[in-house]
């Protein structure tokens, strides 16, 4: 029997997972729709609610009721307190529970409600796709720049500053100030990269409109540690590839090894944006190709993390009309059938990304002869 190709196996697994989860969630929704709605008023207090002469909203009347009831009924003080607590909770729920408000019946999953979610879902997909592509490109650029700097033996700005502390003269002093300035800038950049989205968004809320798509994309890329972790992963793969034996063989064969940007035997500046252009004859081309081959698989993990970032952004900023804000609202009002639909939509995005990544990886594996 011929072996099934890994790409086909992965594709079948992803599709089966989608069908299985979709089927299970659909069954839950059908069960929810077929069961009668539960009465949210506890049975233990129904009798007390019928007493018209007592206004339980008034603390005075509540106290009078408690004392009169304790005199006439054989009920412990603790039991009486819990009844009063239930009555108070029920009274408050008339202000907060949408089912008890006039015209505030729970929204249920219908074709209309699903159609209302569709534009939000499309908008979510667009933001997700843009953030995914931009993050991949930016992470690649940062990783290559960092790798080249490491290969050139460049020390950190702070370390360079300490090295120059002993030097005298105005030129050295200016150099030190420049290094400190660069270190502070880098520190500020790290501060932004590691800030959760809500910290950045609230910090800028008074100055700019934080509810537009462009800001969301920007926040999705730079915040939550996504970009820096992505870049770090790529950098780690570049470093581990550069330690492998084939790199030394390539160097012996006379491939270029300088990592100075712009020099004739070094890396062209375009390598930061398009690493495969004008890199023939440089050992980095091989390091990059092999590192990228492995990095592609980590896009699957990053898909779930990226969605987490977008969920945080939409929910924390309370941006009305967006998918995750709506998800939070449906959780709030316990409209779980709609919650299930949105969660399945988000799950499908991750699964679709995994499928695409597996196909891309499979194609590259076949090209490189690793399949």
């Amino acid at each position, binding site marked *: 029997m011929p072996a099934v190709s890994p790409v086909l196996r992965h594709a079948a697994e992803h599709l089966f997972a989608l069908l299985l989860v979709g089927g299970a969630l659909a069954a839950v929704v059908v069960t929810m729709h077929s069961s009668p709605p539960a009465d949210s008023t506890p049975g233990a207090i129904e009798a007390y609610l019928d007493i018209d002469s007592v206004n339980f909203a008034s603390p005075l009347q509540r106290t009078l009721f408690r004392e009169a009831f304790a005199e006439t009924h054989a009920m412990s003080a603790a039991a009486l307190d819990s009844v009063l607590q239930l009555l108070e909770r029920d009274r408050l729920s008339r202000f907060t*529970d949408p089912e008890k408000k006039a015209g505030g019946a729970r929204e249920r999953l219908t074709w209309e409600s699903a159609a209302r979610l569709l534009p939000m879902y499309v908008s979510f997909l667009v933001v997700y796709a843009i953030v995914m592509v931009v993050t991949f490109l930016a992470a690649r650029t940062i990783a290559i720049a960092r790798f080249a700097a490491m290969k050139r033996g460049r020390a*950190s700005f*702070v370390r360079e500053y300490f090295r120059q502390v002993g030097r005298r003269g105005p030129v050295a002093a200016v150099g030190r100030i420049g290094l400190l300035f660069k270190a502070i800038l880098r520190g500020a950049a790290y501060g932004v990269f590691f800030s959760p989205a809500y*910290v950045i968004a609230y910090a800028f809320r008074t100055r700019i409109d934080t509810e537009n798509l462009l800001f969301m994309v920007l926040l999705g890329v730079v915040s939550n540690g996504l970009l820096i972790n992505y870049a770090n992963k790529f950098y780690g793969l570049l470093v581990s590839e550069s330690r492998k034996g084939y790199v030394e063989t390539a160097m012996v064969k006379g491939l270029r090894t300088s990592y100075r940007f712009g020099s004739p035997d070094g890396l062209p500046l375009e390598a930061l944006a398009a690493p495969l252009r004008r890199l023939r004859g440089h050992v980095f081309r091989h390091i990059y190709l092999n590192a990228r081959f492995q990095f592609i698989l980590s896009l699957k993990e990053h898909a779930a993390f990226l969605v987490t970032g977008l969920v945080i952004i939409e*929910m*924390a900023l309370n941006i009305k009309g967006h998918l995750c804000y709506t998800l939070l609202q449906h959780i709030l009002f316990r409209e779980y059938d709609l919650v299930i639909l949105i969660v399945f939509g988000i799950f499908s995005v991750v699964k679709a990304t995994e499928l695409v990544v597996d196909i891309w990886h499979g194609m590259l594996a076949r090209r490189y002869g690793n399949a």
Partner: protein
Amino acid sequence: MPDGPDGRPRGLSHLFDSRKDLLWALIWSGGVLSLWAWLNVALNAPARLQVQTASLNTALGALGVVVLSLAFGWATALTLHYLDRPRRRKLYFLVTFLLNLIRSVPQMVGMLMGYVVLTALIRGEALGAESAQLLAASAVTSLFVFQEVSDLIRERIRHYMQSDFVNALLVCGVREFTVINREILRKNSLAHIVQKGVAVFGSAVFLVCSIDFIISVGLSTDVSLSNFPPTLGSMLAKLDSKQDILVIGTVLADPSLIPTLFVEHVQGISVAFLIVFTLLCVYKISNGLVERYRL
């Protein structure tokens, strides 16, 4: 500063070179101590106590996530290792399939669903004690993080299983379970596991703060999860802290107001600083470990 006998620089410079993990752990400790000292000067006692409690709860919650992730990851990796045999192939595929399903659930969505369940348990008075709530929240978070650990342990076991010394030990009659746990994991993978633990701690701080922030901001009626122990995330979601953060925008436009950040808006700024500074330092410590042990 003079170089050492081996030609390598000594002192601070040496620390920059070879012990970046330690250096950043020192930086983190110094930063947190300085902040604590400043809070003693600039923040009133009740607010300071809130910040301290929230920091402690966040740290404990994240530590709980690390411990549980290590435990779940270890158990999962060993289960998969023993199932990965021709006779147990079907079971192996089933477990892998289920694990991949969990992997495809974005952490925040999974945690949100988990917290809905926890809220129901709290309302039903099944989870009363604060420590039990923290542990349950950590367990929910670790469900969506532990696969990083299990992947690492699986990879280490696979790597060493091909080596001669493992075969030699097995031939000598040492049990496979002992070989895996003592020889492979404890003696040859401890640095990898510690580094992963540090990375998981960073993820946990981020996730715990984010979920608590979202819940505190978004779910504010009777399904509020604000009964959970306070963390830095829920602390940041409080109105006064949010106002402190909002001031940053004004300060950026008018830098002369910068000093007010450290005197009048200490609570929100210090909470945000603690989150960001901890995430940065944990990242640096984790990278330092990778460089030091060439992981």
